[in-house]
């Protein structure tokens, strides 16, 4: 036992040298190591998919075809979307869960540490496979991240099959990862931490994990059907055999809509942790926050066809999906109301995490409102497949999910590393991101309302001005993210020492551990007040 105790305090026993270093990261079963791996990988993939966005915006800088051909342009939009969703936002939120959930519930580690290692290490293989399609004959997948049949079945390039298998691998990783998180939350809580006492971030991840377990297998089913339709003679998505291409959209969006909540619920969780800290007040309507999250998760299974208003589904279906979609605004509104009420009469300070959280609340709400506009079936006939949709989901994903991830990184970085990030660089990162994000995506609303279709490399002259502005914003946004990475690396070595509490108003078990925390977070269950 003594040996084990020593081990617990001093981190992993590892062989010296580069081999030992590689072995440590390859074989690790530690939740913090794995959390770091997730976060570092998603940061890397953020720049890969970001570079693709730069190619897209460079091509759209002025009308006409300048830099890339339309075929390659389509590959860029497809891979940009796929990697941002599956390779950046999702792994980053899982990285947060790995780091924070055991510390927040008073556990030593994740419930199934070896499985945890597997969940992460599948991903680098899956994304190598996915990006390798760029170098294959016929190019990478070019049918958009939604890979609608028959674009992906009958007309997909040969690399589609490699894409299908990479999606299978990502799905496996997500299922195992979320299974681990759900088991950790249900089984490894400190005995005195009752369910309703759990931090909101843990709650949002519990529900996210449930959503992942429910819908990732559906996605696996969709790509499996695609594979058999392409090569084994089945006719799921082929009307000539009695199937239906629309079936693909139904299955895809039955996965796809809960998927957008998988991307945003952990973000809600992060913001719900950060706003009370910098307001120096407890979260307003804590239990309502939990119920609202559950409500959103339930509704997410009943709204998928709002992506299909123009496909010729029946009128009764349009009305049903329109009203249920609008209903989602109620629990979401509760959340926004509670964040704002938390700040009301609080003694606010505006450190970088709080700034990003504030931007999140305002800009995510804008994205929510454009979502409501899109939910109105008759109006959607106009908006469908235009830049208005692109503007909408970038407001909820960039200024929503991504800003919340920045919030979380700045908020917990001192806890993770034991050093403060550089506040001045953090503020530069925030203000430049905020401005350039809006310069990039706000004009896209106008472009969409004026009728500019999405996923095209060239456009009519009337759209030139707004596209030029959007591209300019995008380049600034891209460069700004280098400040973020520099800050993280620089502060890792040069930042001031962080205290245990880090923030004046911090609350929760993770702040009762030293910064950085010991290798196995809690060796004995802590008492929760």
């Amino acid at each position: 036992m003594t040996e084990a105790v020593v081990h617990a305090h001093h981190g992993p026993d590892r062989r010296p040298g580069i081999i030992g270093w590689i072995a440590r990261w390859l074989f690790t079963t530690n939740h913090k190591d794995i959390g770091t791996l997730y976060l570092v990988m998603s940061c890397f993939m953020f720049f890969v998919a970001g570079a693709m966005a730069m190619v897209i915006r460079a091509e759209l800088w002025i009308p006409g075809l300048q830099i890339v051909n339309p075929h390659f342009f389509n590959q860029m939009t497809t891979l940009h979307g796929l990697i941002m969703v599956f390779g950046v936002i999702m792994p980053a939120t899982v990285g947060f869960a790995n780091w924070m959930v055991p510390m927040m519930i008073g556990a030593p580690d994740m419930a199934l540490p070896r499985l945890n290692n597997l969940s992460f290490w599948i991903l680098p293989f899956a994304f190598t496979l996915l990006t390798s399609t760029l170098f294959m004959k016929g190019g990478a997948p070019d049918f958009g991240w939604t890979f609608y049949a028959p674009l992906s079945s009958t007309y997909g390039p040969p690399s589609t099959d490699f894409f299908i298998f990479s999606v299978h691998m990502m799905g496996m990783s997500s299922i195992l990862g979320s299974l681990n998180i759900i088991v950790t939350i249900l089984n490894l809580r400190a005995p005195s931490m009752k369910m309703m006492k759990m931090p909101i971030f843990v709650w949002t991840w519990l529900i996210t994990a449930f959503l992942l377990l429910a819908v990732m297998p559906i996605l696996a089913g969709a790509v499996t059907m695609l594979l058999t339709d392409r090569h084994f003679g089945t006719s799921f998505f082929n009307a000539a055999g009695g199937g239906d291409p629309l079936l693909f959209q139904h299955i895809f969006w039955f996965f796809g809509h809960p998927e957008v909540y998988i991307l945003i619920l952990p973000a809600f969780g992060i913001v719900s942790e950060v706003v009370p800290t910098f307001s120096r007040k407890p979260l307003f309507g804590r239990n309502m926050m939990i119920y609202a999250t559950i409500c959103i998760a339930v509704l997410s299974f009943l709204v998928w066809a709002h992506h299909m208003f123009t496909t010729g589904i029946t009128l009764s279906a349009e009305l049903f999906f329109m009203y249920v979609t609008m209903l989602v605004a109620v629990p979401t509104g509760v959340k926004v109301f509670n964040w704002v009420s938390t700040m009301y009469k609080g003694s606010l300070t505006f450190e970088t995490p709080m700034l990003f959280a504030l931007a999140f609340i305002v800009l995510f709400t804008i994205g929510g409102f454009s979502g409501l506009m899109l939910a109105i079936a008759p109006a959607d006939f106009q908006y469908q497949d235009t830049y208005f949709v692109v503007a909408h989901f970038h407001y909820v994903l960039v200024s929503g999910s991504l800003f919340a991830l920045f919030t979380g990184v700045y908020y917990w970085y001192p806890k993770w590393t034991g050093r403060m990030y550089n506040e001045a660089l953090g503020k530069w990162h925030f203000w430049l991101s905020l401005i350039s994000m809006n310069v990039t995506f706000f004009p896209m609303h106008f472009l969409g309302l004026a009728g500019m279709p999405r996923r095209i490399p060239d456009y009519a002259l009337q759209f030139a001005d707004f596209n030029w502005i959007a591209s300019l914003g995008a380049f600034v946004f891209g460069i700004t993210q280098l400040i973020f990475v520099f800050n993280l690396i620089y502060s890792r070595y040069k930042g001031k020492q962080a205290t245990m509490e880090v923030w004046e108003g911090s609350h929760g078990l993770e702040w009762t551990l030293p910064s950085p925390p010991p290798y196995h977070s809690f060796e004995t269950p802590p008492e929760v007040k």
Partner: protein
Amino acid sequence: MSSTAGGYYVPKPSHWPIMACIALICLTTGAANWIHGNTIGPYLFSFGFLVLIFMKLGWFRTVINEGLNDTFNHQVELSFRWGMGWFIFSEVCFFSAFFGALFYTRAIVVPWLGGDYGTAASLHTNLVLWPNFHGVWPVMNPPGKSVFHGLTEAMSAWGIATINTAVLLTSGLTITWAHWAIVKSRRKQVVISMLITVALGIAFLALQSHEYWRAYNLQGLTLGSGIYGTTFFMLTGFHGLHVTIGTIMLIIITIRCMKGHFDKDHLFGFEAVSWYWHFVDVVWLLLFIFVYWM
């Protein structure tokens, strides 16, 4: 062994997961290359498969030994239980995608293509695109008969499928018998009931293979028969795959029963497999009702 002072169990670093990743990447790239007719495909796939088997044996051996040495406590076992439960939940969701496809095509697509859905669009689809198509299930003659060849005889519920239902339900009983025998420490009964369960699993697979052989050779029913063949083979095929995996797990558990690995306080491995087997059982009942019978 590695654990923390408070009695929590945390396993030490492991090389099995990364081996699983290597197996996976070889399996997937191997399969994709194989489909594309590249020579490397089958070799890569087979290599991946071997690595997979080796990894599974090693990983499970590690965990089984930890269990036998009482390395981990009740809490870890509870984690395994939760984990297995949620894994089966995700499997249910996987099958629901295929059941959903079946219900959707039967309730909407086939009537729509036949012009009977009750909307103008449905009528036009039929008149303009497939005027000779009749939207009735089972779809013997798909709309595009030149591509999807149709079939001569659909599956009947009252032949092999009925026998297979009896076989699987009986195996559900015998595995419950085994569970009871373990709790009561009746070693001989455990082994007998497990052997019967394995035999029933193998019998099911043999009967289903025979059914598939008949479908392909006598009924003109193949994967390429249109939507009926598509849904029939994909649903029963994935179920059959699960029965195969389940039978392999049952064989391993039977060997472990013979070695006396389980008693009334240590039977998670057994229970996990029995849950899985019951899940496969329930899926079969749904298949019997919705694919064979109705």
